[in-house]
Structure formats: structure tokens, C-alpha cells
């Protein structure tokens, strides 16, 4: 029974897509799967995919919960910049990282909370509510750094971005832990179900006695928190806070990761691990483009072609087309109700 569930999970189109992209990478670069042990850590392109994919994966973990409630968060990239800026400015002015890091995370939480307030209490639609912070947030980050790249040499903060634990790069470890903890937190408690309920039908959730506001506030705050973690990683990685560019356009990658992972933008059912897989698909694609040696003009064209291909393969229509090859049934041609 368990094994069956596992194999059926592994047969999902996302894993097929990931495998396909990795396979293409291998074709482009035969050393792609080589992993070596060097200076107490694993080393190789595959590890790079995990490491570079970690920030988007972490964003996607937070954004998944938001999307499950039928929302969306465009501000996560800007929040990354804010948290990185806060941490970098604090450590570079002598505050110990052990204080700077929690403050940076708190800043992310506050940003998320603000989004949550706009969405729940002011009833502004999520895209536009978070667009406000997407625009203003980067300004805030630049205000903190005064537009320059604030560099630091704090070992703890750099460790978050470049360190290794058990041979794995720190960002990978953080993403993994966050994924597991979050998945357990939503699945071992009732949170997951309640979030899905709010996403499926907010009105019915209210009638059923679910405090959807609290839930929404929490979910947006969590997305901000995740963005803050990603911001710390990106800052730690380059030992500096680049408020101008940190997380720029990453919100789109994060949303894309969630959708590639199979969570519907219409809310409802969600899976955090699958969103992480979605993030890895995107990063594998980016890494592939990097090592392919194509001229960078083609980057976006290649990227869009791969996305389109994955979406087509993943679409219910294609699924039906495939299943029709095996069973002679015509499923309903109608879109789902509502």
C-alpha cells in the first residue's frame, strides 16, 4: 500500500519533467551527474542545481501556502532584499549576527503580515495588495542600504549562504529542513486542511467556523518569513546585500515553481514538496542554459519553450489524451464547476 503510494507519487509528471531536464543537461554536459567530495563538501553540477535552487524553493514553500488560499504574493522578491539589507547593515555596523538574523527574519514576517492585513482586513485583492510591497519594498531595502552594496565578513551570516553541513551546502540544508518542517506542520496539524478549505471556498469556511482571517494573516506572514530566509541566503552567498538586485523577479519564478508543482492558482489542494520539485525544475533548466554555451540572447526563448512543454504535458487535456489511449472513455468536456 505504502509502496504503491510512493511509486504513484514518483510517476507524477513533475518528476518526469525534472528527469527530462536533467537528462538534457547531461546530454549538453556529460559531467553533469559527477559528484565529488572536496574540502568536506559535495561538489558537482547537481549540487549546484540544489544550491542555486534553494532560494526559489524556499520562496515557493511560502508562496505555496498563499496560493493554496487562492492568493498570490508578488512581494517576496522585495522582501528578500529587505531582509538581506537589514541583516547586512546591522552586522556591518557591529551588531552580532545572532541578533541581526532574527531581526531580519522579523522584518520579513512584518512585511508578510502587512500583506496579510491588506488582503484580509482591507480586502484588497492579493495581486494588487502585494504589488504595493513589490514596488515599495525594494525602495525600503535601498533606503536601508542607501543604494549601495553593503558588504560584510560576518562568519555566521556567510555560513548561511556558503557554508556546508554534512557535506551539503547550507542553503540546501535550510531548504530541506524548512520543507520537512513545514510539510509536517501543515499535515500533522489541521492547518493544511483549513488552508485548503479557505482557498476552496472562503465563504463556506467562514460558515464552518474557520477563522480564515487569522489563517490568512499567518499564511502571508509565513511567506514573508520564508522570503526573509531566502534573502539571508542570497546575502550570505555574496557576503553583501545588493538591495537593487537581490530577489529581482524571483517572485515570478516562485509562483511558476508552485504551479509546476501542481498547486492550482485557484486555490485548494497544495503540496509543499512538489513546489520544491517545481523550483528544482526551474533551476535545472537555468543551469542547463548556463552550461549549454548558447548565446545568452536565447536564454528566455529556451526557458519559455521548456515551460510551455512542461505545462502542455501537465495539462489535464494532455493527461486525458494519454489516458484515452488506454481507456475508451470521454471525460466531461466541461470545466470544473464554479
Amino acid at each position, binding site marked *: 500500500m505504502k509502496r504503491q503510494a510512493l511509486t504513484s507519487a514518483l510517476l507524477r509528471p513533475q518528476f518526469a519533467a525534472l528527469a527530462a531536464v536533467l537528462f538534457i543537461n547531461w546530454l549538453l554536459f556529460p559531467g553533469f551527474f559527477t559528484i565529488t567530495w572536496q574540502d568536506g563538501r559535495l561538489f558537482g553540477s547537481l549540487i549546484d542545481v540544489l544550491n542555486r535552487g534553494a532560494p526559489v524553493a524556499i520562496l515557493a514553500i511560502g508562496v505555496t501556502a498563499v496560493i493554496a488560499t487562492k492568493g498570490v504574493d508578488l512581494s517576496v522578491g522585495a522582501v528578500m532584499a529587505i531582509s538581506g539589507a537589514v541583516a547586512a547593515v546591522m552586522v556591518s555596523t557591529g551588531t552580532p549576527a545572532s541578533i541581526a538574523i532574527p531581526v531580519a527574519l522579523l522584518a520579513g514576517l512584518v512585511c508578510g503580515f502587512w500583506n496579510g492585513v491588506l488582503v484580509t482586513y482591507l480586502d484588497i485583492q492579493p495581486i494588487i495588495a502585494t504589488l504595493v510591497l513589490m514596488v515599495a519594498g525594494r525602495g525600503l531595502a535601498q533606503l536601508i542600504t542607501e543604494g549601495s552594496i553593503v558588504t560584510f565578513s560576518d562568519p555566521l551570516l556567510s555560513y548561511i549562504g556558503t557554508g556546508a553541513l554534512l557535506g551539503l551546502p547550507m542553503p540546501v540544508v535550510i531548504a530541506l529542513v524548512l520543507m520537512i518542517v513545514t510539510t509536517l506542520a501543515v499535515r500533522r496539524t489541521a492547518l493544511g486542511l483549513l488552508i*485548503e478549505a479557505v482557498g476552496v471556498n472562503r465563504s*463556506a469556511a467562514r*460558515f464552518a*467556523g474557520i477563522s480564515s482571517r487569522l489563517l490568512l494573516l499567518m499564511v502571508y506572514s509565513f511567506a514573508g518569513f520564508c522570503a526573509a530566509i531566502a534573502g539571508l541566503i542570497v546575502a550570505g552567498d555574496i557576503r553583501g546585500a545588493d538591495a537593487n538586485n537581490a530577489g529581482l523577479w524571483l517572485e515570478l519564478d516562485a509562483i511558476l515553481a508552485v504551479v509546476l508543482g501542481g498547486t492550482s492558482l485557484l486555490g485548494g489542494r497544495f503540496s509543499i514538496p512538489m513546489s520544491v520539485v517545481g523550483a528544482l525544475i526551474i533551476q535545472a533548466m537555468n543551469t542547463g542554459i548556463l552550461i549549454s554555451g548558447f548565446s545568452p540572447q536565447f536564454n528566455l526563448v529556451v526557458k519559455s519553450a521548456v515551460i510551455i512543454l512542461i505545462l502542455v504535458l501537465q495539462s489535464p487535456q494532455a493527461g486525458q489524451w494519454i489516458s484515452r489511449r488506454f481507456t475508451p472513455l470521454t471525460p466531461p*468536456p466541461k470545466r470544473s*464547476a464554479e
Partner: protein
Amino acid sequence: MAGESHPVLEARGIVKIFGQHRALDGVDFAVRPGEVHALLGENGAGKSTLIKILTGAYQPDGGEIVLDGAPVRFTDPLNAQGSGIGTVYQEVNLLPNRSVAENLFLGRQPTRFGLVQRHAIVTQATALMATYGLDIDVRAELGSYSVAVQQIVAIARAVELSGKVLVLDEPTASLDRNEVEKLFEVIAKLKARGLGIIFITHFLDQVFAVADRVTILRNGQLIGTRDLSTLTATEVVRMMLGKDLAYGHSSLPVAEAAKGPVKVTFTGLGRADRVAPFTLSLHEGEVVGVAGLLGSGRTEMARLMFGVDTADEGDITVAGKPVKIRNPAQAVMAGFGFCPEDRKLDGIFGELSVRENIIIALQAKLGWFRALQRDEQDEIAGRYADDLDIRAANHDMPVKLLSGGNQQKVILARWLANDPTFLILDEPTRGIDVGAHAEIVRTINRLREEGLALLVISSELDEVVAYSNRVVVMRDRQMVAELHGADITPAVIVAAIADNTLTPEPVT
């Protein structure tokens, strides 16, 4: 009347399969010109599915559709409309965001030089609504009108579109008596004009009032097509259910049933613009029925009690202790339950499973951290699904795939699972088949015997009479009367609802 003329619209050997489930299995059906053909069956029997196939909303997996003797293939509802088939689909399915006029004329607006002539539409729409006895501003959004008005607009639209066949899938579910009468007049006129009319309802009296023939489905299978003149109500029910209906009414007259101490009291509860302050106490083991015309404020009253809308005055006590209810979550904590009247909008979590839909309120009450384990969930869902006879292939299927009646039962199960002390049911039997209807009435009686306090809003007076210990009457957003004992008869209730001159009894 129907004669032996050739069918105008015919379905032959229709098969429809959803996943593993055969929703229709070789069904034949034919409607002749100038007849009213009732299509009956339990919830989930496949009536709406058959209608959707006949009108191009679904494609059949087998069989064919024949129009005027020639096979046709409707690829979408527009095709069917073009061939003179007008349809009112189950549940109001128009556009709440557009004006009444636009809903009536969508897709066939008169145009000049490609531009829609809005004046013409408004005039025509106003005239059309007047023939249904409605004097409304047709430029206002449809969504701003009550469900009943929306239903009538849907009917009017379908009638306008039907040159040959009119299909009505439970059009009367949210209409009151007068409006039903109006509808029947319209049907009679169309019938005289030679249209074929397909009529789906769960009200058998309406079937006998207007229909000529009846086709009965059960579990996706055709049971038979008969002339109604050859059948009795009991026979129809037997064909539908495959067995006789068990009317398990409690033995002692409801009004006299024992009732315990006061459970909940609402004192001077009200909200400006919504409901005038009212005072009402419910006892343990008591059912209070709420009667009133459509739009009389019954639902509003219930929403206020449950904290969906916040009251701006008044107090609530539960078992003598004052409680504060400013939102449904607090109401649930206070032991209240509420089956809302708009099932789709306020009740059902379409994408979630039957199991999750049943346990969700209990889970909300337990809080985030005390999660119900999967086996607990299965156990609870199983228990209440059995109790209420919820028909679902399995409890992990999305609840949106269930038939309307079964969805209604799922919501009822949700609240029963929550073990409430006070339960509000708003139109609990709307759209529910005779079998389930009887079951719900039985359940209401059983819950009363178990000591619950219930407030039941219903437009079916027979039903109200059948289970109420007390009846309160709403009119114009005011509680205008309270009826006890021998006064609880349809006639007295109707008088209380309608008679403006009747001096309202002081409401306690």
C-alpha cells in the same frame, strides 16, 4: 392531450460515464410536442446529467440524440439553443454580475451596425418581466435580487429561447406558491403552443398538477415511462426508490412533545437595515419553524444568530450564560450549527472530499493542533454518511461530484458531527428527493428527541407543520407572530404570513 405524435426530442440509449461511475446507462427518453414530461428520480439518479446531454452541455459516451426525427450532435449549449431548445439548468445559473435585461438577452441582443440597442433591450425585458408579474428595474444587477427573482429570470430566458422544447431542471425549488402558480400558467400556454416541456422536480404534487407523462430514472437506469393518468403517487415513489417510502413520524403530536429547559435565548437581537430586533428562546428538544415569504428576512435572522452578520444590538445566552457571538467561529464554539440555504456558495467545499467536508467544522472547532487523524476522519464521515444515507462512490471523491441532494446531506452531516446544542437549518430540504426529504424530516425529529434545539426555516408549510413545536412568522424583516399548539396548521400560518391586518401577537 399528448396524443401519439412523434417525439420532438429524443434520447436513445444514452450512456454517460464519469470516471468509474456510470451516471447514465442506456437511457431512452422522448418528449413529444405539446406534452409536459416529468423526469423523476432520486438525488443522483442522473436527471441533470441527462438534461445536460440533451442540451449539449455534456457529450454522451454512447447513444444518440434525435431532434425532429433526425440525429443531431450538439457540441455546446449554443447549438441546442439555436435549435430551439431552451433550458433552465439546476440551481440558478445566470450571471449575477450583469443586469436582468442582459441576462435575458445575452447572446441575442438586438443590434444595429453591430451595436447593441440597449433601450430596446430594457423595454423588452421590462415587458417580459411584467408577464411574470414582476415589476423590477431590469437594469439592476441580477445578483441584487433574491433567488426567487433570479429563478424567474432564468425561466423567462429559457422560455424565450425555446421554439420547440423547454427544459426545466428543478425550477421551483426556490419559488413560493404564487410564483409556482405563475410558472404553471406559462407552462400551460407553451404546451398549448405545441412545445415539448421537460420538467424535473422533487415535488410530486407539482408533477401531478402539470405533467402528462413521467419518466423515472434510478441509479442511471431507465425504470420506465408512463402516462401519469395511470399512476398514483405511491406508485411513482415506489418506482423512484425501488421500495415504499417509510414515513417514520414520531407518534405523539409534535406540538405537544416534551421539551426541556431553555437552551438558547436571543433577546432584542437586531441589526439596522437587516432585521428588526427580535426575542426568541429555544428549549432543549424543541423545533421552532420559521415561516415567511421569500425575502421576508428569515435567512437574515439566522445569519444574525450565527454571527455571519454581526448584530448591532441584543444579547445571546446559552444555557443561561451570556455569550458573545460576533462571527461564526464564536457561534461554533458556543455549540451552534448552521446549514446555510445557499449550499454551493456558503456550504460546500467543492474540491475537498466528502470526508473532509463532513469533518471540517469539527476540525475548526478542535483548533489547529488537535488534528483529526485519518482513521478518526474516516470513522466520523462513515458514521454520518450512513446515518444520512449519503450516496457517494467513496468518501475521498470531491464533494462537487455528488448530486445536489447528497451535497445537502453532507452539510447536515458536517454539523451533526459537531455535536451542536443548537442547530439552524435554512431550507434543508430544498432540492432533495422524496426519499431523502422524508429522511431529513425524520432526522429533525430524531435530533429533537436527542435534546437538540433546532430552528428550521422552510418554505414548505406541510413540512413546517410536520416537525415544529412552535412556528414564528417573519414579514418585512420583522418577527410578526408566534404560533403554538393547535394553531400550527398550514392555513393559520398562511394567514399569519399574508394578513397584514392581523395584529401581531406580542413576540416574547
